[in-house]
């Protein structure tokens, strides 16, 4: 089990971060990702894997002042 944006989520058989993004329909969305409060630079995503218990944040830009 992993956590994505504060919600529990079953871990996929493919434990790559890229597979998770595809599963969530976010592979083409502009976003930034943290695993366990550490930024995963976008250039490193395809080489990043997810471990059981990981806490993942996926964020993007919204209106703000």
């Amino acid at each position, binding site marked *: 089990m992993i956590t994505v944006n504060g919600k529990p989520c079953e871990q996929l058989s493919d434990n790559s971060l890229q597979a998770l993004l595809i599963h969530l329909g976010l592979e083409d969305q502009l976003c930034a990702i943290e695993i366990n409060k550490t930024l995963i630079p976008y250039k490193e995503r395809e080489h990043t894997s997810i471990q059981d218990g990981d806490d993942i944040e996926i*964020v993007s830009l919204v209106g703000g002042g």
Partner: protein
Amino acid sequence: MQTITEPNIPSIQLGDITLTSRLVVGTGKYPDYETMEHALEQSGCSAVTVAVRRERLVDDQGRSILDFIDTNKYTILPNTAGCFSADDAVRVARLGRDILEQIGNAGSSWVKLEVLGDKTTLLPDPVGTLQACKELVSDGFTVMCYSSDDPIMAARIRDAGATCVMPAGSPIGSGRGIANPEAIKLCLELLKCPAHGGDPNYPVIVDAGVGTPSDVTIAMELGADGVLLNTGIAHAKQPVQMAKAMKLACDAGYFGYRSGRIPRKLHATASSPTDGTIAGE
């Protein structure tokens, strides 16, 4: 006679980023993306602030805010709004930078730092602000730092390496304008006056609390280099028109401050000749 030249407003440099407008405008709270897009255009701004948030990558029509912000025209200034600790603010700043690096926007080099201390007033936490500022500066960020209007805090933030101090006119979104002009004056004096260890070129942008165009003008007439606002435009009944008004007010304050106002006097001074009137004595 003075040499007559067309007045113009020079750009200001903030790290690697050049602002061609003295108005920085937020992108939150508009009734819709289209209104925001037109308001930004009318404001004449060259930089816009955005927030970093979970999940809301696209709206229910599949649209992202960046579909309505020309990233070739505007430098995007990501903020750390909503952060109540230095650690969270640093994380959000890095997330925002990563996003802007993906689209090659110059805004990836800077951040609008907010570390808040209280959910009701949204006043900044000075200790957390200083801690986050130091960490972000050491990480290579150009830090635009939101602060209270406390002059000593403003100086501490500058000393921590912030590129620009942004004292609040009044609490965020309050529309109360420049609540304490004397405090803003003291911030400007400490940060800009060489006699107080300041640098006339150190940028100071008044951030937050603006409700009306005259609030913007007052901030500029005090000597601020610019004004950052969001709600005053976005929640106006006519946001696009208000954006235009804010631009004109900013320009008016810029020129007014530098034109040398007349001294205040108790008694009247006639503008028309006092001699040659046909009226009796």
